[in-house]
């Protein structure tokens, strides 16, 4: 079956612009996670959703970052007024339930010029 998909695969933007990153989880997966990975670094947890709700948003780096999930499926991560330090690969994962295996998407490589 289809795995986790993310779009766009690559995004180049200018400093100060807003960007939207999309994640389509595996159908039926109730949990959805966003991570960020800078070059050569480990994964940084951003936020997770259980259904449409996000119990913990403390991983978001600043108030320029926001995320939503509608219909218990697609999620959008929005970064407002992008900065060069936002450049990274943004990974999305989904799982059937808490504690279960997370399936990762291919990521979106964001470059802020």
């Amino acid at each position: 079956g289809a795995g986790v998909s993310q779009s766009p695969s690559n995004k180049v933007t200018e400093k100060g612009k807003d960007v939207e990153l999309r994640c389509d989880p595996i159908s039926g997966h109730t949990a959805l996670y966003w991570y960020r990975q800078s070059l050569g670094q480990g994964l940084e947890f951003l936020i997770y959703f259980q259904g449409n709700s996000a119990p913990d948003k403390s991983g978001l780096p600043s108030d320029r970052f926001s995320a939503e999930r509608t219909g218990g499926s697609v999620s959008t991560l929005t970064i407002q007024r992008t900065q060069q330090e936002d450049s990274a690969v943004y990974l999305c994962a989904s799982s059937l339930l808490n504690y279960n295996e997370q399936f990762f998407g291919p990521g979106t490589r964001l470059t802020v010029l």
Partner: protein
Amino acid sequence: LAKTTQPISMDSYEGQEVNITCSHNNIATNDYITWYQQFPSQGPRFIIQGYKTKVTNEVASLFIPADRKSSTLSLPRVSLSDTAVYYCLVGDTDDMRFGAGTRLTVKP
């Protein structure tokens, strides 16, 4: 928050058994221990998960002592294709922290 500590890097040779240990002194009662593997330019891939004692699957074994303050991922007879970053993840979905991982390099 159950912080994890892993070696930054490890080297091995083809055919050897590799053991990567992760320390998690503040593990909570509800926390599971999960290991992921990540190749360059790819998202992490689940390897194994456990709560206590020993878990084995077709690719690895996970050893967890009774106090659960550490865990060891064991990869039998590694090959060049096992060169990757391995992450130890402890927690529940309220606070998932991957950490820096262990970069394993398998040499011929």
